[in-house]
């Protein structure tokens, strides 16, 4: 396609869109109408805040607290461990309970999870190095054997670049956006632009297709379960058609089919023991997520938050807002997998306007999140008791571009 042809279509497109947009001539919104909508939004936020504050005061945390965090990888706390700290958070160095205010936190150990900062890879030991991918890195994940899978971009194309344990790279392969791994970090999965799931297993010579291409126009990777695709693994792909119908698909070596178990609208994560979380309802004011029970675990559902991911040992669930309004996540919470007890919730407020694009599990009881507030980005460590500290101190930035990219999939189960 030459430049002239592109220009011709672009010109026609601009004219068509301008013509169509004239439909809105004469429409107008009154200040009172906007103020009324603003009041409803404020009430919804306030209701969420009350729930968060109530949960913060009431809940006792059965896990390791931030105070004992050393930046290493503590053993997962047994579920029956004696509660070590309540969530009243009276520590003067901590912001008010329930509030996601990261403007002034104590500084803790560096992240125990690799991360990119402005294109440079920072290691767990505090060192850093250049990234030698052929194209610009945008995401990566650490496999259990020390190899890495990079998602990179060059111009309009996205690629996967596999880096072996000795540092050498495979030839880049084309992909669409999205990279996922299983809890044990033995399988990396991605999607081609035609909806084909491709998997690479640590130690394998080459990536290979899994199942059949998944139909639909808006595909995103949900989760990967299993440890060895030559035996059994499943990759969940969330689909949405042009009418907004949501349906997860499960892709295995045997083929690809709609995932019917649990009646999920989307699958968010699958724990190493097979428990699954995902969306099951959507409403005007938000959504409901659920965890299907199984074995010794009692399932639960919540409409306070969206359930996002399991901790590496599967005992806790990370959650973000039930209503995603697109600005970024202004709320973070954790639940116990067994029974769904809320451990803490923190949310942004009018005076602490913070948000984070994503959070990753650092160990069994802590997550790391790049958080933006007051013109600065920091990586914040948040414990299962709701306490917070800087893992990387704030640096100036704009809300549109986080300088930090945390390793996809967080820490491997078994680390």
């Amino acid at each position, binding site marked *: 396609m030459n430049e002239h042809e592109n220009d011709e279509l672009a010109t026609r497109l601009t004219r068509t869109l301008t013509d169509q947009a004239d*439909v809105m001539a004469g429409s107008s919104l009154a200040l009172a109408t*906007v103020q009324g909508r603003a009041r409803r939004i404020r009430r919804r936020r306030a209701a969420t805040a009350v729930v968060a504050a109530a949960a913060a005061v009431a809940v006792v945390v059965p896990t390791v607290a931030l105070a004992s965090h050393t930046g290493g990888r503590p053993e997962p706390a047994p579920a029956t461990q004696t509660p070590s700290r309540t969530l009243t958070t009276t520590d003067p160095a901590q912001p008010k309970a329930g509030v996601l205010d990261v403007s002034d936190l104590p500084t803790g150990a560096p992240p125990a999870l690799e991360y990119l900062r402005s294109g440079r890879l920072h290691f767990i030991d505090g060192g850093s190095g250049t990234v030698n991918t052929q194209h610009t890195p945008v995401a990566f994940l650490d496999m259990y054997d020390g190899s890495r899978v990079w998602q990179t971009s060059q111009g309009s194309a996205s690629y996967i670049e596999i880096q072996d344990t000795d540092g050498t790279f495979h030839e880049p392969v084309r992909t669409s956006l999205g990279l996922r791994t299983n809890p044990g970090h033995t399988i990396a999965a991605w999607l081609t632009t035609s909806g084909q799931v491709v998997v690479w297993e640590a130690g394998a010579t080459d990536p290979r297709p899994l199942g059949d291409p998944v139909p639909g126009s808006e595909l995103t990777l949900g989760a990967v379960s299993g440890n060895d695709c030559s035996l059994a693994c499943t990759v969940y792909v969330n689909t949405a058609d042009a009418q907004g119908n949501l349906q997860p698909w499960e892709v295995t070596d045997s083929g690809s089919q709609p995932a019917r178990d649990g009646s999920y609208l989307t699958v968010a994560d699958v724990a190493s023991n097979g428990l699954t979380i995902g969306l099951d309802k959507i409403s005007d004011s938000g959504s409901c997520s659920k965890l299907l029970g199984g074995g010794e675990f009692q399932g639960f559902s919540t409409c306070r938050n969206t359930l996002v991911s399991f901790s590496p040992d599967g005992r806790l669930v990370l959650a973000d807002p039930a209503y995603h309004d697109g600005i970024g996540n202004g709320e973070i919470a954790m639940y116990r997998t067994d029974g769904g007890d809320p451990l803490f919730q923190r949310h942004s407020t009018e005076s602490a306007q913070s948000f984070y694009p994503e959070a990753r599990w650092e160990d069994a009881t802590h997550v790391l999140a790049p958080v933006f507030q007051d013109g600065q980005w920091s990586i914040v460590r948040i414990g299962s008791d709701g306490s917070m500290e800087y893992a990387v101190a704030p640096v100036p930035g704009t809300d549109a571009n986080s300088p930090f990219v945390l390793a996809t999939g967080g820490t491997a189960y078994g680390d």
Partner: protein
Amino acid sequence: MDPTPEHQTGTTAVADRRQTRDADFAAYLAARQPSLLRTAYLLTGNRHDAEDLVQNAFAKLYLSWDKVRNQGSIDGYVRRILVNEHNSLWRRAWKKREHIADDETLHRLDRPHHDAQHDGVDAALWDVVQTLPRKARAVVVLRYYEEMSEAETAAVLGISVGTVKSQTSRALATLRDRTPQTLNPRSREEDDLS
């Protein structure tokens, strides 16, 4: 207790500040809403959803007005809310439920009058634009209606410039493949040969 003069002065000052704030916001609302309503229509494809989307975006701007105004980034902020709200999975699903019954009627009513010279091709092009995935449609609207650069589009959508390029390229290819032959050079060549 009756308010003291100091209390009255303080209350009056707060009321004055609120009035000034609302006047500033109202002025911005009046100035910018026509443009945002047009963009919203191109994103949603119907008048009702466009008004609802813009109302939500302005309501959120109203709640953050002081801070956003002080940062001097009002246009970018409200446009980012608008586009991201539209792309939101949540909003998409509940809007579908709410309007599934009257979409067809609205769609018919919304069709503008076309210049006879361009009718047909332009209408077909618009039909295809509306079938694009939401994020691709947002890229097309920002690039070819708002005439934003790739970098500006990437900033509004919170994605990389590379993604903007690839989405644009795919969207143009789709539009070219699915619209009448006058926009598809390959078809024109085939016609010439026949």
